[in-house]
């Protein structure tokens, strides 16, 4: 019994880690003796990774980027859900605003960088506004969609029990729209990371995007690759954290879906 569990666990671990390890090994050995200026050996990149991204840079570049991302993302979530509730609850408001919102959503978020630079200069405010204005639309439109699709039986039940006002918003509307809101938040997170990097590539004096472009322009190639690795790692870790939080917050929903699927 114990043997078989060990075996299956071993099999699962090798399935999960096998290919990544193989790819890593291929990268390591293929570039081991590389003399190509643009493709340095992986060992050099990893060594630079340790040198570059620990210590002073962590505080001067990585942290400001993450703080801007966090501030912009939170603001976008609060505004998006708030406005989404307002727009979603009234059919007239929804009909009037839908084409305008679709147009705003369709604008590729990075082109907002030059526009917002006109208003807000090139400081932290600009970057936070850029992140908010890109992350807002998916959350807003998904909230509207979620509010619109509130189950009518539940809605009638609430009404006949005399639940209205803030209680109705909190217990019925927000709760039943939350799977959709989370979908919007997930889309926004990847947009937020993109905008964080782009706004810093455009105009900044610190931050991840700024530093990586700086490395590239000064032909510090191994440092640049280490930055690319860090950005990749950041995207992966943030999406992992998001999924953990989602599985916790929407456990009831996923359970419901599973129950519906297996009769």
């Amino acid at each position, binding site marked *: 019994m114990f043997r078989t569990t060990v075996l299956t666990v071993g099999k699962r671990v090798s399935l999960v880690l096998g290919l990544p390890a193989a790819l890593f090994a291929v990268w390591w050995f293929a570039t081991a003796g590389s003399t190509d200026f643009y493709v340095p050996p992986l060992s050099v990149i990893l060594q630079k990774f340790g040198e570059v991204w620990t210590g002073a840079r962590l505080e001067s570049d990585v942290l400001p980027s993450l703080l801007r991302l966090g501030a912009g993302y939170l603001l976008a979530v609060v505004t998006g859900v708030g406005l989404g509730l307002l727009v979603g609850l009234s059919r007239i408001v929804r009909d009037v605003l839908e084409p305008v919102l679709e147009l705003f959503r369709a604008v590729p978020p990075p082109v907002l960088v030059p526009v917002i630079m006109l208003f807000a200069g090139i400081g932290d405010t600009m970057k936070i506004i850029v992140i908010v204005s890109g992350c807002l639309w998916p959350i807003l439109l998904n909230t509207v969609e979620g509010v*619109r699709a509130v*189950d009518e039986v539940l809605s009638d039940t609430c009404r006949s029990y005399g639940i209205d006002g803030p209680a109705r918003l909190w217990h019925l509307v927000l709760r039943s729209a939350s799977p959709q809101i989370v979908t919007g938040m997930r889309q926004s997170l990847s947009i937020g*990371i993109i905008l964080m990097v782009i706004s810093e590539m455009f105009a900044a004096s610190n931050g991840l995007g700024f530093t*990586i*472009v700086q490395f590239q322009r000064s032909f510090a190639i191994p440092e640049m690759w280490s930055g690319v690795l860090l950005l990749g790692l950041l995207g992966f870790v943030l999406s992992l954290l998001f999924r953990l939080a989602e*599985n916790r917050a929407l456990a009831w929903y996923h359970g419901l879906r599973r129950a519906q699927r297996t009769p």
Partner: protein
Amino acid sequence: MTPSATTSVTTKPAGTDTGPGAARNPRRLGGAAAPLRGLAGLAGLVVVLQVLPHSGLVSGDYLPPASEMARALWHLLAEDAFWTALGDTLTGWGLGLAIAVAAGLVAGIVIGSVPVLRAVTASTIEFLRPIPSVALIPVAVLLYGTDLRSVLLLVVYASFWQVLVQVLAGTQDVDPVAEDTARSYRLGGWGRVRYVMWPTALPYVMTGVRLAATVALVLTITAELVIGAPGLGHEIAIAQTSGAVPQVYALVLVTGLLGVAVNLMARAVERRALHWHPSVRREG
């Protein structure tokens, strides 16, 4: 990977969700006034844009009135450079999307039909997918400069995952009874892919293509803006550095309209390809 994790990362094909669809119909019946209200909303936006700079709340230097944006747009439309830029953008978008869809389809069908491959690649896909494609910008610049190829690198990387993940979800959705039936009728490997897996996966594929089309446009314009490859994004960067503010807004508006057009087109293609599917037939 748990089943719930799979459902949380894939987007359901349009109309196959049961709950919201039921609530959508009453609106359709009573919504004859909706397009008119929508027009009113757009007109309102134009009025606000026209009045705001005149009211002094926002400086006209940063936000020119709508009439000036319209004039800038009109001048743009008469310029050859604008049409060349639009052509460049559409080329980058179309080529990138085509490569991403083709690669995503082939990889997805191969991985999806071989369970071992799926098990082995799952963790790698989950790791590579969330890597922001902008991380590749410095690499693209170094390798290809401001060439079309750097645009393609970013576009293909970003859109490929959208397609692949949807195709994988689609191939997983195959009805076991249909699969067994096909087997007992002695359909070969190719026959099962063509007549069992493909129709099941198609709604997912179309969702993937629609998402990829939007992502590809965003990445094309981003690459032009940041890297400086020729196209609408580059035109925006030029207009901004030369202080031609109304032109910046006119170009941003063009990219927005392009986005809306891509969206509508993708939806139309989806409807056409899935005209036999219950989700489309029910709505019609």
